[in-house]
């Protein structure tokens, strides 16, 4: 044989899938929500997205290149996904330098020090978001909607629905009063909940998630458990006292519930690998998120819930394994 043929152990073919292709699918799945938020909040939103993605990618490139001296991993698009998710968690009116700080925390604190993609314990985008939430609470929760390309029917200014509600409850009004005062209509929340890019449209996020399901990128168990638990708890509490506990629809459609459940909790790296582990993880997130919403001082608990359950993942991975063939 003059030509040098390849010799390698079996298998000799490979599925048409790579980290890059998976990340690309996630980006595609985020597109509907991004489109709606850009339409709603205009150039400002686009700028936040661009700055967030650009800073994440640049930071990852710079750190791998000059500090870790390893081949760059920006080609796998994971930094782009982190940037998008971070931006979608921020209000469009946020100063851009804060966005950059969020990216620094996401990439240079949550991701690369642990060994980069696949090694991080905490979801980078959420870590960045929580850091900003704790450090810049005013800019993160109070904001004025920026002018969009299509006019919003009920542009609320000041706070997200959850934030406004928390304030209202503190000042002694009940939920039905609050809903009426703000003209909230649950049906329109599906497409326009008047919040940050990731929170504005649960419908668009769901469309994206269905795409991920069809492409077999994610499995539905974790989101079902997160949302199911949230629904169950809110149904229970709302049933007990509708004056101070919000209902199922309100909880599922506002705040980061959808974005968190569909795109953040399902992050491969920071979620358990077995189905049973995933179910426990999902239930845990739903539980913690609802506890924070109902009893905590923060209006929104999704990010904290996911971060807390991220801590439990190594343990869940150790305890739960998948069923093996021929072993009881």
């Amino acid at each position: 044989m003059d030509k040098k043929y390849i010799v390698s152990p079996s298998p000799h073919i490979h599925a048409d899938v790579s980290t890059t292709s998976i990340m690309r699918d996630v980006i595609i799945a985020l597109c509907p929500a991004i489109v709606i938020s850009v339409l709603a909040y205009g150039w400002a939103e686009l700028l936040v997205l661009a700055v967030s993605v650009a800073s994440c990618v640049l930071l990852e490139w710079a750190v791998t290149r000059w500090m870790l001296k390893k081949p760059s991993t920006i080609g796998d698009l994971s930094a782009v996904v982190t940037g998008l998710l971070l931006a979608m968690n921020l209000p469009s009116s946020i100063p851009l330098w804060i966005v950059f700080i969020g990216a620094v925390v996401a990439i240079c604190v949550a991701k690369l020090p642990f060994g980069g993609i696949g090694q991080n314990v905490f979801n980078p985008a959420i870590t960045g978001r929580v850091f900003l939430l704790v450090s810049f609470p005013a800019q993160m929760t109070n904001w004025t909607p920026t002018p969009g390309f299509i006019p919003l029917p009920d542009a609320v200014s000041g706070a997200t629905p959850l934030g406004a509600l928390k304030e209202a409850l503190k000042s002694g009004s009940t939920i039905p009063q609050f809903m009426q005062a703000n003209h909230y209509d649950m049906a329109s929340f599906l497409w326009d909940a008047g919040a940050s890019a990731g929170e504005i449209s649960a419908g668009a996020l769901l469309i994206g998630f269905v795409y991920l399901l069809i492409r077999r990128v994610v499995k539905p168990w974790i989101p079902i458990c997160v949302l199911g638990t949230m629904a169950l708890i809110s149904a229970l509490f709302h049933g007990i006292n509708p004056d101070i506990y919000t209902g199922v629809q309100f909880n599922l459609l506002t705040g980061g519930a959808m974005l968190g459940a569909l795109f953040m909790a399902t992050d491969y790296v920071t979620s358990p690998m077995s189905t049973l582990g995933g179910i426990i993880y999902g239930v845990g997130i739903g539980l913690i998120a609802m506890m924070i919403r109902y009893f905590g001082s923060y209006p929104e608990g999704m990010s904290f819930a996911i971060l807390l359950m991220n801590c439990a993942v190594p343990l869940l991975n150790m305890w739960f394994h998948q069923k093996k063939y021929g072993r009881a």
Partner: protein
Amino acid sequence: MGKLTFSMGGVHPHDSKFARERAIEELPLPQTVYVSMAQHLGAPAKPVVAVGDKVKVGQVLAEPGGFISAFIHSPASGTVKSIAPRKDLAGNPVMHVEIAVEGDEWDPAIDRSTDLVTAIPEDKAAILDRIKACGVVGLGGATFPAHVKLNPAPGKVAECLIINGAECEPFLTSDYRIMVERPKEIVIGAAIMQKVLGGCKCVIGIEENKPEAIASMGAAVAELGYPGITVQPLKKRYPQGGEKQLIDAVMKRQVKSGGLPIDVGAVVQNVATSLAVYEAVQKNKPLITNVLTITGDKMPVERQHNYLFRIGVPLSFIVEHAGGIPDDAAKLISGGPMMGKAISNLDAATVKGSSSVLYLSEAATRRHPETNCIRCGKCADACPMGLEPFLLNRLYKAADLEALEKNAAQDCIECGCCLYSCPAHLPLLDNIRQAKGQVMGVIRARAAAAKAAAEAAKK
């Protein structure tokens, strides 16, 4: 009838059965054949001929070298030129009998007519003897001696004989061709094995992507009218043809780790083995031929073939006969793309279990650079044994044999689903295969020690 499949894992590679419409052609004989003494699982056979001996087609060249071993017969008539080590397709030296081919003179005891013999002999022991004497081994890949498998240990009862026509490996079409061209022989072979096993039921499992084979086999079963034989369509899913997976699919039972199929009442034989059993028992023809597919991903269909070849023909001869290696081939494989072996020595001779020469192009086969594990769990989803390849890979790197055994590295069937589906292109199976070997070594050493201790206690 519903289509069945196994309960966990599996992948869906494109079936690429381009050579399916190419009828079986008989390959001519080269001037020299090299018959390997290690064509089966178990101990190598011991040559019983000497250099200079004249041999006929079908004459015994070597006898079993142990309990799990098999007879080997001459695929050609001529003179024994040498009995010496020769490199196999992986370049490792194996004892071969070299025969200079002179004419094509068959052993007169072999019935070479094409008449169908439907009457099955009554004496089970005689049938088993014939299968053993004709050197029949499993042709589904493992080449386990058939007579051993068909003769369960005392106390073990076969409830179901599964004839494996799944041919789940992409590209391969040899089983498909024999099911289309020689269905009656296969069914008679199955009926013979059914009889040997004490008249259990018999299920012929065929994947749904071969409707013509399902039809022809079904017609043959109906026409021949042996009791208790059915054709069962299976879903297209790799590794459907794995022994454990097929038992799971057809019988809904799982073989325990370290156990044998017969423990759950199953015996699995490939369709090609069934044909070999027919020829051995009804025609007295030893296993000296098999069907092999010449195929490739970038190869025009006219250049693809299904050949009836004599065992011992060098691969290079077959390749030359089929028009040489295509220019865009980057890798040569003997067997399917999922479990086949890459050929590093094309001068190697074919063996009983040879099922294909597969050419894959650079684009189809080149491995992608490794990246970090992203813990997506696709490997665990794909594993048909329910193992966690990502974990085994990590444990292997940490050299933690105890944990590897606990996480069942020894159960790996090396199907390749994990490596196939890994988006980070990690060499999962490469490492797990090593881990499996090491764990098996530990288990064997422990068993040997326990046996020695028991014997010492007896004394």
